[in-house]
């Protein structure tokens, strides 16, 4: 057994496909997530075309039948949450950043890390394979409520439903392995001198997200086994005629599903914290308070789940309790937003592209949060439930999380990942071309939802009480704005791949940032640090007066 640590450069196949290097695994997650985002985005395009221009031929797809519409919305939701937000926000950023930011050479368990990606890739392939089976992919909504999801005769996609379930379960296993690795690495493998409150917020947030995921997903893993048996072995776990209970699935699903919102939100908040501190040249206002509020959010996220079930026939007294907890959780989140704004106050603000994205996150996410108040209150929810109001609401939370914050992170760490700068002009064009249409897509949907448009309806003209022709121009506006937003993503893709070769050379620390990942060359070599660093201070020492540089890296002794 060799005790000497060797960091030789391995061969191509080993380096890019079977690597145990955390940075390569991060890239694998990133590119898989980006590819899945293209698929999920394409589905949004197809079903929005159907809603904006009903029953016409959709260029690049064809006619959208009711069954296909159901499959498209189901796959859009599942893919964007499980195969885009999770791999990019947690796995890609977590893998890339954690060892670099805490000053070590890799994850504590590199081979478990590789296994995590391989299982994740398998889960994506299982999901995609459902497009090839008889009946097509699952069409019973991403929440998979039984009996619709349990009985093939109801959802008409019996094989797709089972493949969807297996894919989701595999994805959970992948993130359990990855999350445990992140947690253990951050707990044990930190550089000498890095105390609990010297850890950069984004690392804290990714680890706390992993812990929340771990604590919430278990019951749904059990639920997935039960649903799988209901589908394939004719058990009756969720069948009320045979002693089962369909509400049980809703509880198991949302006991995970609501914490899951915070699982993806926390890494986004962490990314924004890093960007805001660097581009405001200011220490995070209330670093510890940010953490306290995060813990409060993490705790409360476990006791709000039934607000998804106000119309499912739960006891109204229970609904009251869940209304209260749901409104409570907005308190720590709001406090966190205030802390970010306080960090900006009096800062020396540089409006580079990452900062634009970070500021947009704060503004847009607040709209998502405030509209959540209406849905968390059981009285108003009963009216708004399952309308486009809720679609608009959660897209005002998920798009800032999975799109805007991801762009903040990508544009910020791109120089570190690839050694070159992105083009700033293209970056700003892409920013405005994404954020403006995003609002034009979803503000009309608040209006149509309030007017009564139900979600998951493939064509309003087919239902007399749903048709409301006066609203059609809003639905069409939303669709056209989506086309604009999607086309501006080409600017980003071009910038991303063009800059890989032609971008300005980045150097080790282009943003003059104080955290450890900026002390190594860009891109970091295998093994990360030539000499493993020692940490002397917290991560946000910016705007220091009376120094040649206005910041003090974590690893420089005073």
């Amino acid at each position, binding site marked *: 057994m060799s005790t000497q640590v060797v960091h030789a450069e391995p061969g191509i196949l080993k380096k890019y496909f079977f690597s145990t290097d955390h940075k390569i695994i991060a890239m694998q997650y990133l590119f898989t997530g980006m590819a899945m985002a293209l698929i999920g985005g394409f589905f949004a395009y197809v079903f929005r075309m159907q809603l904006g221009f009903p029953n016409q031929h959709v260029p690049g797809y064809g006619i959208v039948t009711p069954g296909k519409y159901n499959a498209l919305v189901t796959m859009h939701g599942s893919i964007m949450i499980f195969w885009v937000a999770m791999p990019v926000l947690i796995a890609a950023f977590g893998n890339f950043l954690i060892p670099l930011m805490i000053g070590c050479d890799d*994850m504590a368990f590199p081979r478990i890390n590789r296994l995590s990606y391989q299982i994740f890739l398998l889960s994506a392939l299982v999901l995609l394979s459902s497009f090839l089976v008889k009946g097509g992919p699952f069409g019973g909504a991403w929440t998979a409520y039984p009996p619709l999801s349990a009985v093939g005769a109801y959802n008409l996609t019996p094989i797709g439903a089972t493949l969807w379930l297996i894919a989701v379960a595999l994805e959970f296993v992948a993130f359990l392995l990855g999350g445990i690795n992140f947690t253990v690495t951050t707990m*044990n493998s930190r550089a000498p001198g890095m105390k609990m409150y010297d850890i950069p917020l984004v690392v804290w947030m990714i680890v706390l997200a992993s812990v929340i995921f771990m*604590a919430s997903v278990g019951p749904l893993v059990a639920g997935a086994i039960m649903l799988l048996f209901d589908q394939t072995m004719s058990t009756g776990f969720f069948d009320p005629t045979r002693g089962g209970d369909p509400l049980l699935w809703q509880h198991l699903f949302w006991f995970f599903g609501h914490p899951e919102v915070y699982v993806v939100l926390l890494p986004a908040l962490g990314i924004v914290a890093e960007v805001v501190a660097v581009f405001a040249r200011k220490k995070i206002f209330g670093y510890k308070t940010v953490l306290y509020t995060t813990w409060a959010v993490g705790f409360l996220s476990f006791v709000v789940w039934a607000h998804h079930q106000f119309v499912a026939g739960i006891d109204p007294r229970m609904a009251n309790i869940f209304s209260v907890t749901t409104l409570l959780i907005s308190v720590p989140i709001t406090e966190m937003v205030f802390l970010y704004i306080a960090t900006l106050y009096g800062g020396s603000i540089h409006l580079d592209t990452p900062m634009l994205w970070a500021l947009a996150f704060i503004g847009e996410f607040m709209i998502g949060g405030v509209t959540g108040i209406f849905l968390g209150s059981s009285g108003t929810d009963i009216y708004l439930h399952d309308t486009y109001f809720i679609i608009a609401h959660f897209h005002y939370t998920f798009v800032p999380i999975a799109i805007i914050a991801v762009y903040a992170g990508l544009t910020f760490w791109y120089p570190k990942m690839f050694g070159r700068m992105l083009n700033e002009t293209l970056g700003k064009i892409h920013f405005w071309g994404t954020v403006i249409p995003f609002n034009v897509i979803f503000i009309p949907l608040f209006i149509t939802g309030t007017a009564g448009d139900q979600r998951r309806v493939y064509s309003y003209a087919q239902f007399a009480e749903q048709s409301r022709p006066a609203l059609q121009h809003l639905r069409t506006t939303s669709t056209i704005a989506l086309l604009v937003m999607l086309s501006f993503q080409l600017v980003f893709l071009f910038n991303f791949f063009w800059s890989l070769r032609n971008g300005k050379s980045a150097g080790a620390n282009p943003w003059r940032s104080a955290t450890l990942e900026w002390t190594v060359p860009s891109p970091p070599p295998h093994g990360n640090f030539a000499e493993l660093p020692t940490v002397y201070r917290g991560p946000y020492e910016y705007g220091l007066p009376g120094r040649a540089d206005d910041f003090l890296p974590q690893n420089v002794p005073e």
Partner: protein
Amino acid sequence: MSASAKPIANTRSATGIPTARLITWWVIASEIVIFGGLLASYIMHRVGHPEWADAASHTNTWAGAFNTFVLLTSSLCAVLAHKAADGHDGPKAAKLLRLTSLGGLIFLTVKGFEWTKDIHEGFVLSSGGFWSFYYTLAGLHGLHVLAGMIIMLIVAADAAKNQELQRVECIGLYWHFVDIVWIFLFPLLYIAR
């Protein structure tokens, strides 16, 4: 098996807890919520369906009790293996680990006879709520026993050569967890009437 070079990240211990033990505890924590969700679902249903007691009366309490005894005894072997590993006696630890997994094998064999009898009497996975939970819970637990046995034999092979002795404690922790799950399952599936 030549152990590949470990990253420095693996050798650090900022918390003071050895990394191998730390990850084992996290794995167990994530398993607790999986079994917790399934058990909670079962208990809630069981309370709502007093008639399931009729089905439960068909389970063989003596077989279950014998299996409980087998698992507890095997856990003792796992503890002794840990003690041997602490004393740097790899071969002895390996021997005790193999004895532990023999306990797992006896457990699964008894289960096999029980299930064969149940199935012959017409009680299968889809025979009703109780049986669905019975097979799902015990089946998931059985898979954990099987996985534990396989990992234990791998760890034993290394331990026999005095390699990776820290893993002896970890697989022992996991085995105790599997044991404790059974301590919940036995009264809930066999004894409760």
